[in-house]
């Protein structure tokens, strides 16, 4: 006698260890196979774009920390470059270098979390994650030295950064730069050829090059699909045209490629850090900017290569002290566009791995 079966709806989240925050997927299942999913957003919606309209240009910087809260420095960076473009403000050399140093450290810290959480989703429960946190801790210590904070740094200012680095910063950074390559080698030894990781991620959740471009995917996910596109190279902002680094890309666009690209990106960030530390000039860290910035009427869009992808700010000014409109281009939200097609037909356990390989932060999705 044939068994009677029918599709059923499974709710994953809003709070679930694999959902990386308060994110929910409504999955339609046929037994263990995912027929369809629908991402459900909004559990962390705070109306940050609306709040921006009631704050001064400088006063909005702390709120940018709360977007992608595991990469606050990148958010600060993207926002202040947008205000500077809008108001035509120049930034001193030393501040540019400090920004690049912080942004690259932040990239490494964010990729450590991305890779650790991805391995969690693969079933390597918390052992690799805690290894990654060992190194991230060093970066967070460095950030604490410069900003006094360990998560929401609020470090950058319109026209520069809030304060110069203390004396103990550069020796501690040197120590980190010496040790980190060895740690990355350690991950490679542990994981790159690990049979279970290969079985769980190779050929799973393939995102083709054409699909990735059509879905406006950005960051490591786009590069894993074989597109050599990094905003730091394609449209250099700040002083990125002065550094030598490569763009790691994948070939297939599967979960393994996305994992591998992130590991390779850490090495490139270390290369940039080495160059930035060697070239770091002395001088002022902030240009003379009035407390209340009043940009001329107009609009500006700037984008940076944040750990998740293209993080952009679109600002419209009406010559008052607050933005008339502040739109945030969230890489985490847009990178999920293709999720539905990526997980269809895979088993539920694979769907979790595919979702983990995209690497999102809900603070940035919902805003």
């Amino acid at each position: 006698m044939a068994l009677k079966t029918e599709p059923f709806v499974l709710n994953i989240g809003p709070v679930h260890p694999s959902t990386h925050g308060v994110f929910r997927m409504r999955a339609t299942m046929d037994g263990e196979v995912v027929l369809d999913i629908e991402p459900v957003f909004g559990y962390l919606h705070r109306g940050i774009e609306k709040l921006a309209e009631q704050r001064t240009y400088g006063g909005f910087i702390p709120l940018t920390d709360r977007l992608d809260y595991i990469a606050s420095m990148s958010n600060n960076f993207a926002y202040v470059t947008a205000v500077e473009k809008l108001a035509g403000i120049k930034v001193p050399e030393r501040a540019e270098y400090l920004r690049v140093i912080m942004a690259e450290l932040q990239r490494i810290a964010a990729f450590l979390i991305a890779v650790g959480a991805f391995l969690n989703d693969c079933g390597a429960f918390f052992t690799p994650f805690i290894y990654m946190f060992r190194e991230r801790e060093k970066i967070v210590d460095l950030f604490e030295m410069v900003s006094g904070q360990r998560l929401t740094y609020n470090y950058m200012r319109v026209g520069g950064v809030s304060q110069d680095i203390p004396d103990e910063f550069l020796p501690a950074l040197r120590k980190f730069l010496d040790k980190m390559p060895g740690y990355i080698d350690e991950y490679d030894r542990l994981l790159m050829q690990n049979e279970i990781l290969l079985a769980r991620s190779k050929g799973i959740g393939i995102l083709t090059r054409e699909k990735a471009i059509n879905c406006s995917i950005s960051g490591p996910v786009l590069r894993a699909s074989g597109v050599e596109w990094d905003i730091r190279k394609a449209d250099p902002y700040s002083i990125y045209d002065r550094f030598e680094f490569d763009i790691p890309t994948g070939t297939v666009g599967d979960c393994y490629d996305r994992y591998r690209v992130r590991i390779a990106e850490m090495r490139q960030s270390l290369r940039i850090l080495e160059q930035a530390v060697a070239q770091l000039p002395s001088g002022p860290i902030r240009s003379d900017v009035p407390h209340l910035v009043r940009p001329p009427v107009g609009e500006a869009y700037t984008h940076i290569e944040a750990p998740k992808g293209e993080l952009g700010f679109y600002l419209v000014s009406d010559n008052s002290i607050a933005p008339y409109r502040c739109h945030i281009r969230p890489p985490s939200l847009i990178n999920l566009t293709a999720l539905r097609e990526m997980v269809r037909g895979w088993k539920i356990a694979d769907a979790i791995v595919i979702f983990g390989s995209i690497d999102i932060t809900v603070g940035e999705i919902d805003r």
Partner: protein
Amino acid sequence: MTRTLSGKDIAGQLEEKFPGSIVESNQAHLIVKSEVLPDTLRFLKETAGLDFNYLNHITAVDYYQYFEVVYQLSSLEHNHTTVVKARCYDRENPSLPSVIGIWQGADFQEREIYDLMGINFTGHPNMKRIFLWEDFQGHPLRKDYL
């Protein structure tokens, strides 16, 4: 460095192909009539030499008299970019054709604009609120909200 293509040059090309489609154009952007928006955007994507295959982002701004929807387009091949805009003058039921058939990346962004700004994108297969709950009243990013 990404080159910003002049809105005037692109407007010239569009005007040849779609006469009367351009409302206004300058160095930084061009504004097209909303009826021909999908046709012009598809032309920009598929014409050799322009090849705007990547939609950076879509957003909307409320200027009281009209809503302005902003499309930032890029070409990953030629590394150039431009800004196309469209305006909605109807405050009660503003609507624009969806571009999801041209760039799938528009999916969540159009839903977000509908949710927060209240612009309806016709032709979008799943036009419903994305962040706020279904029976929420109003569209918070409008200037007359609150």
